[in-house]
């Protein structure tokens, strides 16, 4: 007999992913904030007791490797588990990624066993967790400025909510009612996940379920190894840069920026990939040390970005579980930009640096797989925050959005224009919704024609988004690829770097990539997002 039952394999694949998805549906359905409900900035997952992930329902790739890190942190912090326990955390240096991402981990206990055979986890991006600016994504130099830090804490112990901790959390955020609702939604998702896994154990028996989970991990590992095996053996290197550290570029940051940061611009990210058979090592040695601005990533983000690339290579049929991580070793120098140590600020590591890590890993792989890997995509999320007081309603407002751009062209054809790339896939806000809700007017929202890099196949175009302010406001931009361009491949040209412009009384002036400014009524912010890189020599321009 075949040691693995191909039928049970497929059925349990469905079963485990449906547990994660039902958790996700509960979380999305009962959450309060639009960021979780509509932009779907959350993930849910099931784990074995040893911390291996067996299924994940994700809408956000950056959560891929970050969820296992949270469970590991919870397992290291606590050794005793009782039914009804629930751990909460957001500390990037203890299982988190950046402070707005609050993660919960809870054990699943079953009859006849003292230790939990499973854990479930959920992570959601909360609209505000305190700190120096609304939205908790400031241009900060220390994590303490970014918001409330929650180390792994049993928020619920044996079914009893620790009200003191809960109150402390709520007292430190700007919108406590919304936070309470969103946290309650996460708790509800955990109850669903725990219950579903208990049901499955009751139906199939624990031994069976554990065996099937093991098979599923081995299955994903096998599929991933097949993908790695297709990469020719060898050593491949690539390096790219971030524009700056958020403080050093002319006029960047805010007026009180620390002088010491000047000159430490253009942080480097470098990867050396060694492929041997079905095993691969991605070594980030040579990357810059941690920077003074918020672009630092914690290790979980670097792993997420690396695994994201591997998953793209393995194809859509491979289930999302820890098996896919096994063939890949990630080496990150401690204290670097990619494994920062406290108290560095980390808000943008999640949203910007993660994108560049993907560019670097893909760039290295392109040497091994020139006929498969596409050129660089826009490489940024173009984070824009607008805050002020609505003159008609007399109430404060804060608005956050991210803007799509071009994807890289590749041997399969041209790139897409005006779309979110790699580590995010959140929706835009409709123009009419934006104008209904905030004192702004959108003047243009169109493809930035010609911004995709030339080549046999052109990169996708970025977009131009122009917003006119109808009242005084504070604008924060956290954007990348304003200086360094998304690279082309195999003779293709790079995509056009992005530009941020302020149009005041008809006169346009360039803004830095990362900046906080005051705007007046009539001012127009014009964000030009980067195009994707082109692929192939333009002289072979025959099939576009």
């Amino acid at each position, binding site marked *: 007999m075949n040691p693995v039952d191909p039928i049970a394999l497929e059925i349990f694949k469905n079963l485990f992913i449906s547990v994660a998805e039902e958790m996700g549906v509960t979380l999305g359905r009962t959450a309060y904030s639009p960021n979780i409900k509509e932009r779907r900035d959350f993930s849910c997952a099931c784990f074995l007791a040893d911390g291996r992930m067996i299924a994940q329902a994700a809408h956000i790739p950056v959560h891929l490797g970050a969820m296992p890190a949270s469970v590991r942190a919870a397992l290291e912090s606590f050794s005793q588990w009782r039914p009804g326990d629930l751990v909460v955390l957001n500390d990037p240096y203890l299982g988190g990624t950046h402070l707005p991402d609050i993660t919960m981990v809870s054990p699943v206990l079953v009859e006849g066993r003292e230790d939990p055979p499973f854990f479930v986890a959920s992570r959601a991006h909360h609209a505000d967790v305190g700190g120096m600016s609304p939205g908790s994504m400031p241009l900060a130099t220390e994590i303490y400025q970014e918001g409330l830090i929650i180390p792994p804490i049993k928020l619920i112990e044996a079914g009893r909510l620790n009200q003191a901790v809960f109150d402390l959390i709520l007292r430190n955020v700007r919108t406590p009612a919304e936070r309470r609702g969103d946290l309650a939604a996460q708790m509800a998702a955990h109850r669903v996940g725990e219950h579903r896994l208990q049901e499955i154990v009751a139906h199939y028996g624990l031994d069976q379920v554990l065996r099937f989970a093991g098979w599923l991990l081995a299955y994903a590992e096998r599929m991933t190894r097949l993908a790695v095996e297709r990469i020719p053996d060898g050593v491949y290197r690539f390096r790219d840069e971030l524009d700056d550290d958020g403080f050093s570029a002319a006029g960047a940051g805010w007026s009180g920026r620390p002088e010491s940061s000047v000159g430490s611009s253009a942080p480097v990210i470098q990867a050396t990939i060694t492929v041997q058979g079905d095993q691969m090592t991605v070594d980030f040695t040579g990357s810059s040390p941690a920077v003074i601005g918020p672009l630092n990533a914690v290790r979980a983000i670097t792993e997420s970005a690396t695994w994201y690339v591997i998953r793209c290579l393995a194809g859509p049929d491979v289930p999302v579980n820890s098996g896919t991580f096994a063939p890949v070793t990630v080496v990150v120098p401690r204290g670097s930009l990619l494994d920062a140590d406290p108290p560095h600020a980390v808000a943008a590591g999640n949203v910007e640096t993660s994108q560049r890590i993907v560019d670097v890993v893909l760039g290295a792989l392109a040497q091994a797989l020139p006929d498969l890997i596409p050129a660089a995509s826009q490489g940024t999320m173009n984070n824009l925050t607008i805050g002020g007081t609505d003159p008609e309603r007399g109430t404060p407002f804060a608005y956050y959005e991210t803007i799509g751009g071009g994807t890289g062209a590749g041997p399969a054809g041209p790139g897409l224009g*005006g779309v979110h790339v790699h580590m995010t*896939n959140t929706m*835009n806000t409709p123009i009419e919704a934006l104008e209904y809700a905030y004192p702004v007017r959108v003047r243009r929202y*169109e493809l930035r024609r010609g911004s995709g890099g030339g080549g046999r196949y052109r990169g996708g175009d970025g977009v131009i988004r122009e917003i006119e302010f109808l009242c005084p406001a504070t604008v924060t931009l956290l954007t990348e690829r304003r200086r360094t361009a998304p690279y082309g491949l195999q003779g293709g040209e790079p995509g056009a770097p992005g530009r941020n412009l302020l149009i005041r009384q008809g006169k346009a002036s360039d803004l830095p990539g990362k900046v906080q400014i005051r705007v007046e009524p009539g001012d127009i912010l014009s964000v030009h997002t980067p195009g994707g890189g082109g692929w192939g020599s333009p002289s072979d321009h025959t099939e576009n």
Partner: protein
Amino acid sequence: MILGVDVGGTFTDLVLLDPHGQIRVHKLPTSVHDPSVAIWQGIADLGADPRAVVVHGTTVATNALLERRGARTALITTAGFRDVLEIGRQTRSELYALYPTRPVPLVPAPWRFEVPERMDRNGMVLTPLDLQETDAIVSRLMEEQIESVAVCFLFSFLNPTHERQVRERIVQPRGSSAPFVSLSCEVLPEYREYERTSTTVINAYVAPLISRYLTNLEEKLGERRLRVMQSNGGTISAEAARTHAAQTVLSGPAGGVMGAFAVARMAGLDQCITLDMGGTSTDVSLCPGRVQETAEGMITGLPLRLPMIDIHTIGAGGGSIARLDAGGALRVGPQSAGADPGPVCYGNARAQEITVTDANLVLGRLDADHFLGGRMKLDVERTRAYMEELARRLNLPLATAAWGVIRVVNSNMERAIRTISVERGYDPRRFTLVAFGGAGPLHACELAAALRIPRVLVPLHPGVLSALGMVLADAMKDYSQTVMLPAGQVSAEALQGLFHALQERARADLHAEGFDDTQIMFQPALDMRYVGQSYELTIPLVPQAGAAAGPSAPGIQEWVRAFHEAHRQRFSHADETEPVEIVNLRLKATGQSPKPRFLYEEPRDLDPRAAVIGQKAVYFAPDSLVPRPLPTTLYERQRLAPGHRLLGPALVVQLDATTLIPPDWAARVDGWRNLIIEPC
């Protein structure tokens, strides 16, 4: 007399309902090049009265979208926004892909034009329409031989003047030779520019095709009155369908749910889940005492935001192909053998991959001699040979491998049903599974067992439910309008005035279709949300006859209370101190025509032995792992009468479907000749 005609890719189904409630059905191959040939033939075969109303469901619009073969369509937008159609919501279709994709827009960039004009959020003109530029664009349209034009300006749902002016500039100088014009303020006067543009463009893209198709059909049908099925489960006149062409998209599946729900409600089982399992896909829909609608519809990845029946579709059907993947898992679907080459058992030399139908045949669940009433012989030997090969690769005995294929496809369908029930807060144990389509009745009982659904209903004619739904459908029109009003500050009178305008339009439209006031029902609803939310809940009021619609009797406070309640039910929380806003007004107008009751016969205590046509070995796996052959009785559906009771294991064969009754399940025939199957 009403005749329902559902033209599918393979078969044209007809259902004729006479004034005594007698139903006659007919099924014949679709005449692909000119569908009216098969329709006309079917009508002749049935000998239908020339005055019968013909209710028609067509896949013309759906196929044009699937194959991207619609009209040459242009789009005119506010200056600065012609790419909204392409950018969409800035998301890609797959999270993990080296080459992400997104649906190709129906209008390519060179045919997307923009004209200076702008309204603000109150519908006030910020920039007047540039008429000179408009005329220049219109000449370009003519040069490009554009057949159909969509016009979508920002905030046009608040102030439609500019869109209407553009139409005038296109149509007035050209009369009947002008291209079709679809205005977003008429197709979908609701906020969210991408979804409104997409819906308007879909309408423009299919309207010329629908119009030509209906003109041809009307010529063939002579004096018969032609009505067209819509995706909202109601019908409209052929005339109206020409301008509201997008509403005919997905009318076939909508007819299926309407038919299934009608049959189940008649049987007293109106809490039901419909399961329509065909060759390439399965449609499921949850009906908690009513057919549910969604305003979140999509077609081929493009938003189509007209109200439509809420149907969840997955790529699993009788033709789904079973394959062992690189990691060693047995996968079934979404690839399908389709009609060509078809399953292995149909005997086409190019059909070499095992499908769900083949697995059913190997397990004895399909009877080779009674498939399609014996019109099509199934090749058992050939099927076993290919099944052996798959079994070898799976390292399993033949029957266990075939059972594996069934288990996997069932687990896919189980997940689909969980999605529409458990994930939306409904407990499947309180529902009846209504199974139809070619393969539904074969899989329903085992699927029900897995979900602990206590009952399965198989209608008398499971292969023509969509045509049956068309026969039973009322005329139905949906109207909406974004208003964006704070619920706390709007007066009941103001709201009623707004409803009144919609109601007058609805009344005029239904009068034009031949309905008088006594037949017209209005159902008003408000889309509401807490201020700051980005999603709405539709709060209906009880239907009101004839005259008054709107919030006259119950004041606004009633609606707001109903909103809090609905919010609590759906999202498990509500906050009565939070301000609420009214986003959209909705009005559903129904033109009701009298329908004869279906023929009912009192069930009697009869011996079903007269319906037995044989015995055979069929594989079942009560422990769900190892299948064993059990002697199974074969019944002929036509010979079953009200009151008959059948004990599983049994197979009930009929022209267009086979019903499987597993061991420990029993079926009874009710007064409408439905099979009601329950565990014993």
